Every structure is written in structure tokens, then in C-alpha cells.
């Protein structure tokens, strides 16, 4: 059978050296009443047949070409250098476990240490952790940090934070008995003000003002950021936010129907002890050689148990590795070019769309980077029409925000070349 190693001979000789007659002698502790005859599953298949069966499922999905994908909402089509998969497909990385034995895991540990540094640099904060599951849980974990740090029981969500992030935040908060309030005005009970920059609609918020009002109320400011936009936009550290979180999918990860992606979190020095999850730091051996180890584990579940800062154990290391390769490939200049190209194309597109009869910017006086909301006639019809033309059109945000009837958000990145924009316009005008 596939992936099994023992031959019947091996099994017999192993039973013999254990000194038992049969497998049943090894399963004696399992009450007979619990034994099942067999699993209600079909027998296994050859690799060839398995592949064709699953490939036929893949074939039942419709894949829109990157260049004709104008849909974002938290997951974006971007150019991914081949270097990323070339690294993450190395079995030495992807078939290792969490690096419990540092001397035999220096590759993983150093890679994580570099990821922590990259995120800290990108967000301009002091320390980042080894990764979290995704952007949504990162927001929730940040809220937990604020709750513990301030011992206050409310978090204020300002503006259009990704609706799914809000849902996850609520689920986490309920457990800890934290109140999630939408609004802008923090009060004396407020542990943190949480905002997204740019927000779910692509709009830029006044991060500085929000941060100051949070601080004025003795609350922390938690900024949920788009990592690529940070090549252009002021990073949380520059406007004084205490914690930065975000979704790292754009840093070299494929959409993959929503996962696995990677959440990141970084914070000011004062909050480091509250960070959830793994942290890697430098250490030295007897000969003074530098190496890397899991650090500050006293925060974590395997030591602290119910008093841990979080329950997270397995995180998203390999996705963080992908993000590290991506950021290292781009460097500051490359990342900036990716951001600027996306910015320029999105603004060009916005202008051309606004010229369509009946189309208008949904928030004319608000700025954006490369995702933006338009108010359009017959939104659903527009999206369906584009799909027929092989274009993955904008998102109808009314699904989440009743007040935004007829509003759709378009996204543009470096993969939507100018011909792709023309095709989109042609399809809309047709």
C-alpha cells in the first residue's frame, strides 16, 4: 500500500521480537465493543488514478487569469517570483517540525529570525513574532494583548475593518468576555482602537488621529496593515501605533481559495512579553558561534499552560518563509516599485471607470492605494457580465454592508497590465 513500509515478513519478525502472537495482542487495551470491522471508505487508489480523480475536481473549478483578476478584498493576485516556490519546496524546510532542537534546526530558526526582522522593519516597530494563522486571527490576538495589557474589557473597531476579521475578533472576544464596539470614540473601558489601513474598501484612514485618540483614552492603537502598501504608506511605527498586524498573502502566497496564508504581528518593546506564539532569538554556543533558538517560551502554552498569552502552537512558518523570500527578492526598491505600479494603474483605472455612464467613486473625497470603491448601476449584472468575458470583476460589498448598496471594489496590481485594463473597459462598455 502506498506510503507504507513494512512487508508482511517485517511485520511477522517484529511481532516475534516483541514476543506476541498477533497485532491483537498489542491492541488488548481497546475494549472489544469499540472495535470496528473496517472504515466506511473506498479502498485506496494508485497514484495515477488518485491524481486523475483529484485533477478532475480541480477541472471543475474556473480559474481566472491573474491579469484579468480585479477582485481583492483581502486576497490579491500578484507576481510571485519563482524563487519563492524554489525555496519553500525544499523538503529540508517543508518536512521539518517546529524547531524544538535548535542545533538541528538552524535553517528554520534563522529563516524565522529573518522574517521577524523583515516584519519589524516593514512596520517600523520593535519586534515581530514568527507568524500567526492569518490576518483575522492576528487582529484577534492583538486585541487579546491589549485586553491583558490594559486589563480593560472593550475594543473599538473603527471604520471598514475587513468584515471577516471582525467576525473572528468577535468569536475570540466572546470567549474572553471582551466587548467589541464599532465606532471611533474610545472610552475609559477601551483596551484598544483597531483600524485597517487601507481599509476593506481600499480607503485610507487618518491613522495618526486614530492612534492619538486611542492613546488619549489610555487605550492601545492596533493597526491592521497591507504589507505591500507599507512601501508607500507611513508604517504603524511612524505614527505611533502600539501593535501592527496584517495578512501576508500578498508576500508570495497564492490565493489558494483563501489559505494557507500568514498572519503577522509586531509591537513596541513594552508589549513584547504579551506577544502570542513563537519568537526566535540569537544565542551562542560554547565556542561563541552565533545560533538561533526559540525564545521567551515562558509566554507559551507548553510552559505556561492556561496562563499562556495564547494557545497557538503550530503556526504558519512555511508561509512566513515564503514571505521572507518574497521580501528579500524585492528589497526596498523592488517592493516600492510593485506598490507604485499598482498605485498608478489603480488610479488610472479609477479615472477611466468614473467616466463610464452612471459610474462614480463611492467616496470621492477619500484617498486609496490600489483598491477602491465605485458606485455603479446594476452591480450584480456588471460582475456577471465580466465573468462571461473571462474577467474576475469587483466585489459587491453590499453583501456585508447594507448601507453600501451598489458599491463595488476594484483592485489593480502589477499583474494587471495595461492591455488588461483595456480589456476590462472594453468588456464594460460592450
Amino acid at each position, binding site marked *: *500500500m502506498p506510503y507504507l*513500509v*513494512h512487508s508482511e515478513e517485517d*511485520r511477522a519478525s*517484529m511481532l516475534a*521480537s516483541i514476543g506476541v502472537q498477533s497485532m491483537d495482542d498489542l491492541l488488548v487495551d481497546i*475494549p472489544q465493543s469499540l472495535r470496528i470491522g*473496517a*472504515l466506511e471508505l473506498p479502498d485506496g487508489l494508485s497514484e495515477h488514478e488518485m*491524481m486523475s*480523480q483529484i485533477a478532475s475536481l480541480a*477541472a*471543475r473549478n474556473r480559474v481566472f487569469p491573474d491579469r484579468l483578476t480585479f*477582485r481583492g478584498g*483581502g486576497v490579491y493576485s500578484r*507576481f510571485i517570483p519563482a*524563487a519563492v516556490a524554489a525555496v519553500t519546496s525544499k*523538503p529540508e524546510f517543508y518536512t*521539518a517540525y517546529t524547531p524544538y*532542537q535548535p*542545533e*538541528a534546526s*538552524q535553517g*528554520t530558526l534563522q529563516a524565522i*529570525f*529573518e522574517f521577524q526582522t523583515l516584519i519589524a522593519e516593514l512596520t517600523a516597530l520593535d519586534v515581530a513574532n514568527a507568524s500567526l494563522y*492569518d490576518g483575522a486571527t492576528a487582529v484577534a490576538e492583538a486585541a487579546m494583548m491589549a485586553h491583558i495589557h490594559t486589563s480593560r474589557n472593550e475594543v473599538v473597531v473603527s471604520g471598514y475593518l475587513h468584515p471577516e476579521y471582525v*467576525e*473572528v475578533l*468577535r468569536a475570540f472576544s466572546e*470567549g474572553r468576555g471582551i466587548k467589541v464596539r464599532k465606532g471611533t470614540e474610545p472610552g475609559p473601558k477601551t483596551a484598544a482602537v483597531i483600524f485597517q489601513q487601507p481599509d476593506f474598501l481600499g480607503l485610507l484612514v487618518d491613522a495618526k488621529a486614530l492612534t492619538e485618540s486611542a492613546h488619549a483614552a489610555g487605550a492601545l492603537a492596533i493597526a491592521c496593515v497591507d504589507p505591500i502598501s507599507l*512601501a*508607500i504608506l*507611513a508604517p504603524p511605527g511612524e505614527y505611533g501605533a502600539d501593535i501592527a498586524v496584517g495578512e501576508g498573502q500578498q508576500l508570495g502566497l497564492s*490565493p*489558494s*481559495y*483563501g*489559505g494557507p496564508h500568514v498572519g503577522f504581528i509586531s509591537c513596541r*518593546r513594552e508589549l513584547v512579553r504579551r506577544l502570542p506564539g513563537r519568537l526566535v*532569538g540569537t544565542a*551562542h554556543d560554547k*565556542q561563541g*558561534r552565533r545560533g538561533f533558538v526559540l525564545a521567551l517560551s515562558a509566554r*507559551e502554552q*507548553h510552559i505556561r499552560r492556561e496562563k499562556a498569552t495564547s*494557545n*497557538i*502552537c*503550530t503556526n504558519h*512558518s*512555511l*508561509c512566513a518563509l515564503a514571505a521572507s523570500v518574497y521580501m*528579500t527578492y524585492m*528589497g*526596498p526598491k*523592488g517592493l516600492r*516599485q510593485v506598490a507604485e505600479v499598482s498605485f498608478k494603474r489603480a488610479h488610472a483605472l479609477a479615472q477611466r471607470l468614473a467616466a463610464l455612464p452612471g459610474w462614480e467613486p463611492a467616496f470621492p473625497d477619500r484617498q486609496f492605494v490600489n483598491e477602491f470603491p465605485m458606485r455603479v448601476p446594476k452591480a450584480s449584472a456588471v460582475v456577471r457580465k465580466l465573468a462571461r468575458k473571462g474577467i*474576475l470583476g469587483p466585489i459587491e460589498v453590499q453583501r456585508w454592508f447594507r448601507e453600501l448598496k451598489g458599491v463595488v471594489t476594484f483592485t489593480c496590481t502589477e499583474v494587471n497590465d*495595461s492591455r488588461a485594463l483595456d480589456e476590462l473597459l472594453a468588456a464594460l462598455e460592450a
Partner: protein
Amino acid sequence: MTELLSFEKSREAASPPRLPEADVEGPESSQVLGSDLLRKKAPGLPQLSEPEIMRHYSRLASMNYSISEQFYPLGSCTMKYNPVVNEVVAALPGFAGLHPYQDEDTVQGALELMWRLEQALCAVVGVERVTLQPAAGAHGEWTALRMISAYHRSRGDTRTEVLVPDSAHGTNPASAALSGFQVVEVKSGLDGRISLADLESKLSPRVAALMLTNPNTLGLFERQILDIAEMVHATGAMLYYDGANLNAFMGICRPGDMGFDAVHMNLHKTFTTPHGGGGPGAGPVGVKAELIPFLPTPTVERTNGHLTLDFKRPQSIGRVRSFYGNFGMLVRAYAYIVAMGGDGLTQASRDAVLSANYLRKQVEDDLEMPHEGPCMHEFVASAQNLAHEGVKALDVAKALLDRDFYAPTIYFPLVVPEAIMVEPTETESKASLDAFAAAIKEIVAEAKSNPQALHDAPQNLPVGRLDEVAAARRINSYLQGQSEDPVLRWKPAQK
């Protein structure tokens, strides 16, 4: 061989990668955005060429031990062979290229796969529905506890405690705490199983659930699981199954039949999705009928061949993460299940148990065996018999690294002093088990003849034993503002 950090190799003047130009008329960000919106100081990302980057990561990779090259008997982690074909399957454009907000009609294949995977997992653990949303085991534990508390609340029954055995994994109490429960510890008896007497004494109407893994973290099957279930249910509490040890009995018995009401599974353990040096994994949760209303949204529903995502679930605990789970990992796990089939999964568990008992037998004269066998898929030994030579489990672990084996889990479970927790899995050959046993014998002999050699291990790795205490001290002085070296990140010297 060690490797400089990418940051240490970076050169200001290095030319950036070639990237597409905008090739449209449009403004620069600086022409549109106000200065307080704009970044002042560019992020200090490294500046390197592609050949340098690939060399860098290739060298880092070569500094890792991994299942691909080493026996990796890390107890409780089920480090079995990761089928290479699953990487191919998950990378199919028909899966990897899907946007999570595509319309349902364009992702029927993906939804069908999720639905089939749910059915298969139901069959393996004996539950009625499974949510694929949780990203890992701990996430699944917490998700299940959220459902359990919602269930009790829905019946106007407020319960504040969760029982956790002293042998439980740290994520259990942490997950319980994170969902607002007080954690009450239940003791293990001398036979390594949970003490029914102690359980009895801790059970009360305040108890929402008992979290249990079976076989427990000592690799021992909880013989009295049916009695335990009865006791727990009698008080109106629920029984939660930590699926980390599911590899012990697929096709032999099922948690659902044992009386567990909620079950998490680690697809990155039992179902071979690669652990990636610390994830991503996937921690689906299966539930019995009473808990179905509380499943996270959306669920995948199938009505005469057509698949939909059901968001309208009034009693749901809501979302536990964005989108629908770690889909790429779900694809891998499903591919594994299809290839193995019911027959293969059953044989896998039988071989896992066989290998563990075989290896246990090979080393039982060399290390202490605190509990009687047979074990299930793993066993916990103790290095206490080397105590008077001053040799600890840690020394044994490092000596194994020098002999080209990864180390077993050590110092867990906490109930066994100097614990050495060995899980060989079904995908290691007898030859490789024998080699490991020989290494243990050699090390135990060395403990007697030359203990210092063990304290000095490892010698054959890029670095020797690293001083974590000194590291912690340096971190503290940074956190207390007495030093500017964060230790947890690189900083340019001049800074």
C-alpha cells in the same frame, strides 16, 4: 558551516530586481497623498541579487534535519512521510489559483473536495459533521470549546470549568482558558491512565467538558474510556477528543463510538500534510448532532450534486478565521486519504502501533519504562536511570542529533520525569528503527563510560549546544531598556 543573515550580506548599491513598469498614465503616490500618509524612512529590507538569495536559502535548508533525510521520532507529532505527489496536487492551478470570493458556481470542484473530505473524516472519527476551518490543532480545540460553551449557554446552563488531565498537552488548558473557562486538572493514576477517582471528585455541574486524548500522551489507551464517558455525560458535561494521537487506531476504533462529542484532528500529523517547520497545518473539528447548530460559518452543504456555502446559521459561534480554512492543506489531506483508502489507513495505524511496540522492546533495557506496555503508536521512556551519571534526557537528545537522528520529544508529558517520548510512525523501516535502537544503546553505554561526551553533544552540527539562559538574560535587559540589542531581530551595528 554557518550562514550570515541576509541583512548582513545586503549591499546598498545592489540593483533591484527587474519588475514590470506601470505603462499607463497615472500619478505617483507622492503626487496624490499627503506627506503624513507617506512613509518617511524606507524599510530596511536586505538588498541582494537572486543568485545570492537562492544560495542563502539553499544553505539554510542544508542546516535542517527533516523527515526527508532523518528519522524524526518526535513524540506526539506523528512525523510520517509526506507524500510528494500531494505537493503536486495542491499546486494544481485549479486549486491554487482560486480566489476565495469567486462565485460558488465557479468553485464546485473545490467545494466538492471539502465536502468529500468532511465525509471521510466523519467516517474515520465517527462524528456527524466536521468543520474544516481551524488552522491547527490548538485552533480546533478552542473552536470546539467555543461550540461546547455555546451549547451549554443555549440550554441556559452556565458552566465555568473544563477538566484537563495532568498529562495533557499545553494547548488544552490554554485553549480552555482562551475560551473563558477555569481549568481544573485531573490526575493520572500509577498505570499512566486518568484516575477515575480524581475525575469523580472534580466532576460537578460547573464542568462544561473534559478534554482527553486517547491514547493519552503516554501512548497508553484509556481502557476505561466508556466509563469515563458515562461519568462525564452523567453530569451534563461534554467529552472532548484531542486528535493528536488519532494515528494510533484509524480503522480499529473511533472516538465517536467512545462517547466523544467533539473531536479535533491534526491533518499535519495523522494525514501527512507537511509540518513546514512549524505549520501551516489544519485542525478540523468533528461534532455529534447536539453541537451541529454551533458549527462555525460557513459550512459546506450538498443538495443533489450542487454545492453551496451556508452562512445562515443563527446559533453558530461565527467565524474562527477568514475564508474556509487552510484549503491547500485540505487538498493534500484528501489526496492522502484517497490514495490510502480505508484499507490503507487501517494498516497505517496497525503498523504505527507495531513499530512503536517493536522499538519500545528494543530499548526497554536501556531506558526506564515508567509504564507497562503494550503501548499504542508511541511510548514514553525516562532517562532517570542515567541520573546518577548526571546524564539527562536533554543529553540523550543531543547525542542522537550527533548520530544523524532527530530527537524524540523530551520533558513532555510533564508527569514523567526526564521523559523521552518516541513516536516512530508507520513510515520508518525496521532497519531505521534498529539503527535508532543501536544509537540509544551506544549513548547509554557512553553515559556510563564517558558522560562528559554527552554533555558536550552535539559536535557534528553547524552549532553546538546553544546557551538559552544567556539569551533569555539578554532579552530581559533589552525589554527592561538596559540594552538596545533586541536579540529577537537583527539591527544594523551603527544603530
